[in-house]
């Protein structure tokens, strides 16, 4: 049982089990337990509860980022946000929600429909544009996504738009040609607006297991990810993979998706996240 302040074999195993079942992963779980053991050894009060220490340890790993604030000063004009990730994780929906957040803080928003591949991808984004009161730049099915990206930034420049959100097609990180296409989209943004993309968000599904590591590594290599979005945290999955990602790649989690509606996107808060994981 977990109580008191000494980390015996049984307590260590129990904690490891909790962490692994939350998708923290074996290596990260073992490391966390080791650090917890160290933390307890060094604890001044001596009688700090194991769970309090565990919570502190997890908060230290998960936290440390600047909380996302749509009203904060933007880097570029337009401020370009590239959204990437594997198939079905929630990129398009997240963009719809982000558009709403930026619109609510008084910003003008333009959506770039760079998923020119999947059936009804553009109509899906168009509905989100309408909901948020954002403009949208699109092309015909099968058009070059890099060209659409370029056109979208041009349009934003000419209309003096504050924020451009770039939706891309889902792609498995193992597909070299698709990752090359993504690099091309990214370069294209930079051609039309120096410094773009100012933010590259990798969207991850909270139900994903250890494969999230592989995804993050490859997407980071291809596009220099500046923040993670963890979606579907309104479900039963804990999203513990966030710890391994933070530990290995150091990329902060900026936002979490907690539902399918416009308002279901929240700035990431380490404490709340850890609380939910341990309950």
């Amino acid at each position, binding site marked *: 049982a977990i109580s008191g302040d000494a980390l015996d074999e049984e307590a260590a195993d129990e904690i490891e089990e909790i962490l*692994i079942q939350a998708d923290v992963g*074996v290596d990260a779980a073992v490391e966390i337990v080791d650090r917890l053991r160290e933390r307890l050894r060094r604890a001044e009060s001596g009688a700090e509860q194991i769970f309090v220490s565990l919570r502190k340890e997890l908060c230290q790993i998960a936290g440390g980022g600047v909380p996302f604030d749509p009203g904060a000063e933007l880097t570029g004009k337009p401020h370009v946000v590239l959204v990437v990730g594997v198939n*079905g994780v*929630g990129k398009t929906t997240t963009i719809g929600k982000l558009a709403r957040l930026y619109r609510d803080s008084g910003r003008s928003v333009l959506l770039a429909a760079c998923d020119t591949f999947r059936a*009804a991808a553009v109509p*899906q984004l168009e509905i989100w544009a309408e909901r948020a009161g954002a403009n949208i730049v699109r092309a015909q099915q099968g058009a070059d996504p890099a060209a659409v990206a370029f056109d979208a930034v041009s349009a934003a420049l000419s209309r003096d738009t504050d924020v451009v959100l770039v939706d891309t097609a889902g792609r498995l990180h193992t*597909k070299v040609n698709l990752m090359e296409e993504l690099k091309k989209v990214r370069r294209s943004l930079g051609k039309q607006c120096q410094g773009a993309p100012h933010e590259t968000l990798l969207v991850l599904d909270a139900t994903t*297991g*250890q494969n*999230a590591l592989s995804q993050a590594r490859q997407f980071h290599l291809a596009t220099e990810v500046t923040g993670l979005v963890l979606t579907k945290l309104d479900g039963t999955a804990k999203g513990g993979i966030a710890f391994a990602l933070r530990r290995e790649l150091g990329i902060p989690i900026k936002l979490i998706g907690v539902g399918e509606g416009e308002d279901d996107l929240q700035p990431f808060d380490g404490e709340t996240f850890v609380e939910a994981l341990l309950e």
Partner: protein
Amino acid sequence: RLTERLDDVFRKLRGQGRITERNIDESLREIRRALLEADVNFQVARSFLHAVRDKATGREVLRSLTPGQQMVKIVHDELVSLLGRQMEPVKLADHPPTVILLVGLQGCGKTTFAGKLALDFKKRGRPPFLVAADVYRPAADEQLRTLGGSIEVPVFGLAETGEDADPVEICRRGVEAARKSNRSVVILDTAGRLSIDDEMMDELVEIRALMHPHEILFVADSMLGQDAVETASRFYERLAFTGSVLTKMDGDARGGAALSIREVTGQPVKFICTGEGLEALETFHPDRIASRILG
């Protein structure tokens, strides 16, 4: 690689003709790590390893294999037997149409799979019919119609029922339309939903009660982690699905969720999806999946 790691374990305990208790425990730790890294659920891995331990203890190590390889063989065979034999995926109904209901979490690939399944039936000379029962996701109806259009399979949805129809009514009238036009199979595509969303789960329970589907397929993303057990068991509790589908297997997810889903529901994996195209559909081969899980 697991075989190499196990070889290392046994190299330390060299000279053993038989696998003994001690070297089994050591090797089981390595196997457990491999299973967890492959996203096999913690509890499932635990009970699986007990079974492996029983099989391994006292077993003669074959002359032709190293102990590491022998251990992997035991694990592999046990995985294959658990995952279930290859089988005829969908049994057709005595009186058409065969009704197939697709369910699962958001974004796992149901709509795309609906198209794949329809194409597969079409190729087998079984005229399929698609029903777009997702009224929630923006442009979901359009997505299925586009897929259906690309393979010349009719799609039934809000355009046919009128805009106020709910998913239950769309399914009911869709099956009716399929029957009237002598279709062989009707595939009901539903909205992704959380297993803990009671209202949405009730909707599926109602569709099942009314339409008596011959097959209910739980579509799951192959990158699903530990949550596979929680989600699959909840879906199974409410719907008693008859098979699962693993999608996005063209990626590098090890697919341990397949074992978890099978273990916790007793239902077989029936299909594997290996790409975004409608041609990318395979039937389930337990030995291939076992090898993939073991890495």
